[in-house]
């Protein structure tokens, strides 16, 4: 496969970014890998140099509101924060949207059919509920349809109060196990509904999802099951004709020990008396138990680092750009997200 991901020159000649054409970044990952955190960090990273970015969530979790410490988001685009500043200190704006299928359906109906009273009747007869929960795939079309609308929205003409247009949209998508179905469901529905507006809508959304303007990024941690799932996910996306983006390796353990130190610790070759005298020099109240404990802890760490390295090698065989983000001991708050965003920018993801 040709290296589609050759780095391109960005607005700053000394910076290259990997996804200059992409306007829709879909972020997926196995549960527990921190996919929502990565989606938020990516939105912050893309929102620099005055660019507008929309961060969407579709799973009803209100994770964005929690991460940015705001009130629960309505079905309405809200500016939530400034993005990560570029070299010149210029940031952009991050907006957020919580997409729920019921609101998306009502909006869709209002937009295309001018359904006023009938909309209410639909609700009374359980049609809204049917379409958004039971009818196969319709829910997903509604969700991706709204994202499509935000990506393809025509540029504002400059008069009146119009909807904002975005330079990029980041979608915090369902987990890897369901991502192909979620995105590809449009073709499934299009197959079920052979004619009609749902079919037309599904076809349009599918065309965007399969285009060079979309990239599906996968978040993983360096453990066997998530890495396996990432690899399965990439294969599935490719066979569904969906554009695979990069892999974000999240929650990487601290690299406090270099390769040779790590090997020494792992193989029990560190001289405890040297460590003891170092500690004494650093004014630590030292005894033998402390030295043994520190070395034991470091050995636990070295064992895990080896396992991580094996998994990292596996990720590398996928032949897609890889970005790494550290595990932050303090957890995720706004400051941490900005830190992660800067790391993604430095690695060229944005």
């Amino acid at each position: 496969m040709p290296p589609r991901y050759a780095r391109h020159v960005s607005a700053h000649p000394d910076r290259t970014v990997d996804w200059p054409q992409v306007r829709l970044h879909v972020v997926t990952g196995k549960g527990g890998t921190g996919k929502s955190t990565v989606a938020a960090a990516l939105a912050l990273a893309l929102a620099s140099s005055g660019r507008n970015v929309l961060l969407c969530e579709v799973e009803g979790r209100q994770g964005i509101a929690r991460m940015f410490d705001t009130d629960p988001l309505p079905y309405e685009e809200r500016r939530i924060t400034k993005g990560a500043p570029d070299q010149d200190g210029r940031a952009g704006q991050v907006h957020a949207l919580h997409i729920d299928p019921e609101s998306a359906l009502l909006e869709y109906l209002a937009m295309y059919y001018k359904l006023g009273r009938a909309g209410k009747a639909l609700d009374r007869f359980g049609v809204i509920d049917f379409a958004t929960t039971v009818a196969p795939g319709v829910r997903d079309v509604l969700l991706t349809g709204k994202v499509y609308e935000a990506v393809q929205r025509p540029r504002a003409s400059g008069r009146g109060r119009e909807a904002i247009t975005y330079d990029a949209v980041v979608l915090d998508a369902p987990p890897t196990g369901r991502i192909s179905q979620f995105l590809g469901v449009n073709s499934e529905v299009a197959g079920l509904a052979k004619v009609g507006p749902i079919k037309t809508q599904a076809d349009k959304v599918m065309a965007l999802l399969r285009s060079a303007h979309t990239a599906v990024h996968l978040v993983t941690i360096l453990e066997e099951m998530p890495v396996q799932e990432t690899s399965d996910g990439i294969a599935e996306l490719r066979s569904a004709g969906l554009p695979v983006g990069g892999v974000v390796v999240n929650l990487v353990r601290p690299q406090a020990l270099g390769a040779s130190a790590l090997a020494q610790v792992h193989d029990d070759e560190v001289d405890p008396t040297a460590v003891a005298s170092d500690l004494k020099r650093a004014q630590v109240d030292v005894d033998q138990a402390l030295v043994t404990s520190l070395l034991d802890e470091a050995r636990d760490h070295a064992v895990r680092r080896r396992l991580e390295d094996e998994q990292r090698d596996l990720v590398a065989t996928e032949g897609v750009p890889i970005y790494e983000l550290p595990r932050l001991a303090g957890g995720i708050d706004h400051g941490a997200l900005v830190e992660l965003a800067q790391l993604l920018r430095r690695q060229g993801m944005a």
Partner: protein
Amino acid sequence: MTARRRPGPPVLDVDALLDDRGTEIIVCCGSGGVGKTTTSAALALRAAERGRKVVVLTIDPARRLAQSMGIEQLDNTPRPVTGVDPAAGGSLDAMMLDMKRTFDEVVEGQASPEKAKQILENPFYIALSSSFAGTQEYMAMEKLGQLHREALTDGTYDLIVVDTPPSRSALDFLDAPERLSSFLDGRLIRLLVAPARGPARLMTAGLSVVTSALGKILGGQMLRDVQTFVTALDTLFGSFRQRAEKTFALLQADGTAFVVVAAPEPDALREAAYFVDRLTDDDMPLAGLVVNRASPPARTDLSAEAAITAAERLRAGDSSSLTAGLLQLHADRVRIVEREQHLRERFAASHPQVPSAVAAAMASDVHDLEGLRAIGTSLAEQR
């Protein structure tokens, strides 16, 4: 905070739960990626090796775990797991859920062969049975009901352990049966069925607005598929609702125990808290909380701050000091353990009545019986 020892939250006594012959069903639930499948398998194995006749119903096990349990093929039939210690007189079977097959079986079991064929071939049914977001949840509960009925009649099993699907939200599987059956029972169905039946007695002006709007949204052909489907399914509606109600009652029964699984992360514990509240509201029997993947505690009580200060001192003289690296790793470990501890305490503070057990993170993924056994031991040996 650590100076005064407060009485901790109650501890979940895993062995007492597994040994109690009154426990007939254990449902493991929680958000995705917290190790639900592994926890269910570990509990099932421990129960079997303590003398119970166990079947574990898994939804989507990791490949190597499935292989080691001998359930890599999706055939909806429980198969004996080899390598289980039979000394205590127990046994362990495992199966992986095939949701479409289970749905097909429900239809085949309820309808005449002719009608069943008509339903199974309907495009809408095919899509519904393989992709409806709630089908997996519904079928997991359906399969649980089946296994339980079989267990009662022929005594093959005295304990069923169920893993729940990786839902959008952990609550989905409680709601799915109700949602599907209320759809199949509801006004919309009657409305859809009405034109196909002929008599236009229901066709008021309001209804025609609704059907025409539905036709517009879904397209006429899909609407016809739906109509054919619900007409064919019409006679089964009652039984679908009955089944959903029975399953719900089974989940509320004394023989059932819910184990909420979480990881020591804010999202997973928040989801666990929702789940606990929901179970309480619905009078579901909650056994307790299992917190998986807990970071191993530090081996010395040197504080994170002291370790960082010392590391900085050493780095000032030698930027690549190995001892500084050791101190930094220690500080990181202490901080993570403190954070996890804090998250668990916060959960306990808002749910003081919920017993919990903590399983330490394993160095690598679990994909054999030995690993499952280690988790079982770690869960049972709480101090």
